[in-house]
């Protein structure tokens, strides 16, 4: 018996193709129609990292026709624990080109568009304009806001995902149908308040789960099936292995998608706290009241100035590398051990950590507690190893 469905199928795809995609085409909600929608879909992936790698793998495997990969980074040894498109032979190679090589054999019909550039507020609209839907898998706030702003202004859905330590988040922001990222978080958090993965760590499999959820949401949106995460924020606690869901809604006062929007172009925020591997820093050195770059700090130390270096990292980090001589007080012990610093109250203190994020918090705490000459070492020991003293191991 030939049903209407079967006739439609015979007319549109060959038997080989049916076999090729049979496991999903036989799903009644998906069908041949779903496969064709995927084949015609253009998906942009911003950030080919912990989230972007699994998302790209599943979207390519599912038969998405066009994938745009946007990332200016190169593969760093610390990436491989979670960025499953890369291996130890890829170190130093561009992520976009390497990912493209791995993804292409998954589907000969797949078109990959390589954008080995950093998405910024300035180029976001142009980069994303030709895509139907955007997967936001980047790792920093300025890019998150640039993606969100551009998606709302272009009217494109934004599949949101983020991870830290053992906690992951996912949602789908569809302009006109629900909130955008700014409805939840109107502005990026101030410098030093929220740590990143390089600072705080991330369990490798966590972005695997969240990136896969992003791929699933993109496929559902493209095919128009099921209940998407629009209007819901999913929070995964991987240690407890529990998923929680929060109902979220558009904020009528949102500066971007509210009733009286004031943002008409993506807003550029400066990245003050960076992530390991391939991040660019401003070339200019500076020595300001509250912060100093490693090159200038080292120059002043070598000229014999009486500066005190204060290391606020964890003991395990100090075992890996340290700038000497320095005083060692882990950040969480600072309030209880501040007495040990009293004798240095009149000296200029330079606080450092791994990337200069925790140390910002420590430095401002010290200032509030009577230490008047406290500076943050910008970029932390990581930048010190690249800019001031390459003999110190980088971790």
């Amino acid at each position, binding site marked *: 018996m030939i049903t209407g469905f079967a006739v439609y199928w015979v007319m549109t795809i060959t038997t080989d193709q049916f076999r090729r995609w049979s496991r999903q085409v036989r799903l009644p909600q998906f069908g041949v129609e779903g496969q064709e929608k995927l084949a015609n879909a253009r998906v942009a992936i911003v950030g080919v990292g912990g989230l972007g790698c699994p998302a790209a793998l599943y979207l390519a495997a599912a038969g998405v026709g066009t994938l745009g990969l946007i990332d200016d980074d190169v593969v760093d040894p610390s990436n491989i624990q979670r960025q499953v498109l890369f291996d130890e032979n890829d170190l130093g190679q561009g992520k976009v080109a390497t990912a493209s090589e791995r993804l292409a054999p998954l589907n000969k019909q797949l078109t990959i568009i390589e954008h080995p550039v950093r998405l910024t507020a300035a180029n976001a609209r142009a980069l994303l304009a030709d895509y139907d839907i955007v997967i936001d898998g980047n*790792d920093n706030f300025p890019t*998150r806001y640039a993606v969100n702003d551009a998606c709302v202004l272009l009217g494109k859905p934004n599949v949101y995902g*983020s991870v830290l330590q053992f906690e992951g988040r996912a949602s789908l922001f569809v302009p006109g149908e629900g909130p955008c990222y700014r409805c939840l978080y109107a502005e990026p*958090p101030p410098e030093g308040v929220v740590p990143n993965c390089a600072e705080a760590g991330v369990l490798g499999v966590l972005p695997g789960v969240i990136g896969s959820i992003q791929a699933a949401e993109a496929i559902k949106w493209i095919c128009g099936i099921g209940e998407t995460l629009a209007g819901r924020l999913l929070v995964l606690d991987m240690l407890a292995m529990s998923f929680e869901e*929060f109902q979220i809604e558009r*904020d009528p006062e949102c500066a971007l998608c509210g009733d009286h929007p004031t943002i008409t172009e993506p807003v550029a925020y400066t990245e003050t706290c960076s992530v390991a591997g391939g991040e660019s820093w401003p070339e200019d050195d500076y020595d300001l009241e509250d912060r100093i770059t490693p090159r200038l700090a080292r120059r002043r130390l070598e000229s014999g100035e009486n500066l005190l270096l204060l290391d606020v990292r964890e003991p395990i980090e100090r075992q890996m590398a340290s700038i000497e001589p320095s005083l060692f007080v882990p950040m969480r012990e600072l309030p209880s051990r501040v007495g040990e610093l009293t004798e240095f109250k009149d000296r200029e203190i330079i606080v450092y950590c791994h990337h200069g994020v925790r140390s910002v918090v420590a430095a401002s705490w010290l200032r509030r507690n009577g230490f008047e000459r406290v500076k943050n070492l910008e970029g932390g020991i990581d930048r010190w190893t690249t800019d001031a003293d390459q003999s110190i191991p980088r971790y």
Partner: protein
Amino acid sequence: MPINRSRDTEMAVTVKLFAVYREMLGESELRLDHVAGRTVDELFTYLFIDKAPEPLRRATLFAINERYVRPGTEISDGDRVAFIPPVSGG
């Protein structure tokens, strides 16, 4: 009445903490009495008073009973309050 740890009365308010807030307070969930009538941001400032709460509070997503609420929303007896900070890792 000051806010204090609940002995698990029905009126107790549950506070769920996420991401860095768990580390900062050393717990993922608190049960508190005498919270009703205060706003979510007042409760936040109260709990994080020694952790420079202002910049954190401004960057926090508040929810009551698994639903997003604006700062200034009052808490009622038995509510489940959540403080969700932004995370950007990818």
